[in-house]
């Protein structure tokens, strides 16, 4: 899941790949509120995952986002 998230963040949201580590916060990877909406839309269109921007905004780090993705993919 981390690799899939990395790919979306770097290819679609132009985040520098080297900045995307499990410990990195949203601020570290410069993911502002509109980018979080775009990420939510991309997780749905690319991976079929339903994760709202509200949920993503509560994730403090990249690792927290990956955890959300794993939880949601387990329930589909």
């Amino acid at each position, binding site marked *: 899941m981390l690799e899939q998230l990395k790919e979306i963040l770097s290819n679609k949201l132009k985040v520098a790949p080297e900045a995307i580590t499990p410990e990195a916060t949203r601020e570290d990877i*410069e993911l502002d509120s*509109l*980018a979080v*909406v*775009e990420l939510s*839309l991309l997780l749905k269109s690319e991976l079929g995952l339903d994760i709202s921007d509200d949920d993503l905004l509560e994730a403090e780090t990249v690792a927290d986002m990956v955890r959300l993705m794993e939880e949601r993919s387990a329930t589909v």
Partner: protein
Amino acid sequence: MSTGRAAVVTGIGSYVPPNRVTNDDLSARLETSDSWIRSRTGIAERYVVSPGTSTGDLAVEAGLRALKSAGDERVGAVVLATTTPDQPCPATAPQVAARLGLGPVPAFDVAAVCSGFLYGLASAAGLIAAGVADSVLLIAADAFTTIIDPADRTTAVIFADGAGAVVLRAGSPAEPGAVGPLVLGSDGELSHLIEVPAGGSRQRSTGRPAAPRDHFFQMLGRDTYRHAVAHMTAASTEATVRAGWHLSNVDRFVAHQANARILEAVSDRLGIPAERRLSNIERVGNTGAASIPLLLAEATAEGRLAAGHRVLLTAFGGGLSWGAATVIWPELQTI
């Protein structure tokens, strides 16, 4: 495709007020910076009205240029799309028509926020199709900064003032400049996403003054982004299908200049490459209803938009409201 009288673009003009405001100017009074504004909105500078200048003043300037461009100083009607009329009553369009010396022609305002130009295009095309007028001056103008809270850094860095106008005349649906199928839509259940809560009958009928911030424009950014991307993408697709075009045939994509990132998200979904997208948001910001004709006028003057180009227009705004239309760009004189 309709076979009745089409509305054909014959002139174009635009105007921005002289007062230029850079990101550094805004950073001097707001907790923000040039890089913060550029990276989040794509805007570097914008123009704002001076004290005492109104939407009508901007509209007259743009209207004058569009009439000159059309080479005909008479039209049969005036439609003004705006969110910031000179006063709550009456409409601003009749005063604009009078100031342009157009005589006792029908004149009225259209309120569809940032979709105003496309809604105005539908109104103007309707006046022509119904035989009310043989030509229409359609102006989209906003002194949008007059409803922006200067202390709200999320909107104060985005919105700006300006006007754009086109002259339309009755013609054949097959000729260049004929406005193609128009797709419009609205969703009033989400009116709260983009609003000025106070100042209308809902608040005034209470007899109580509103909280000061409720007289200013408010926008829920994340929800607006999501709906803007979805509706502009869907409306654009539908407009091209109804015109008998394929998205790969679109030579120039002209979307309401809301925010550089929304524009990128919509054109990526439509598969329209960067070199076919027109944009001027970096220099003028989000000018509300004015943004599409302002961009069309500038791009025509600069040659980025030329006769024969297949143009796809799309907009999204408060209401919610949205729309899209196609037009094969005609030969136009620029002023």
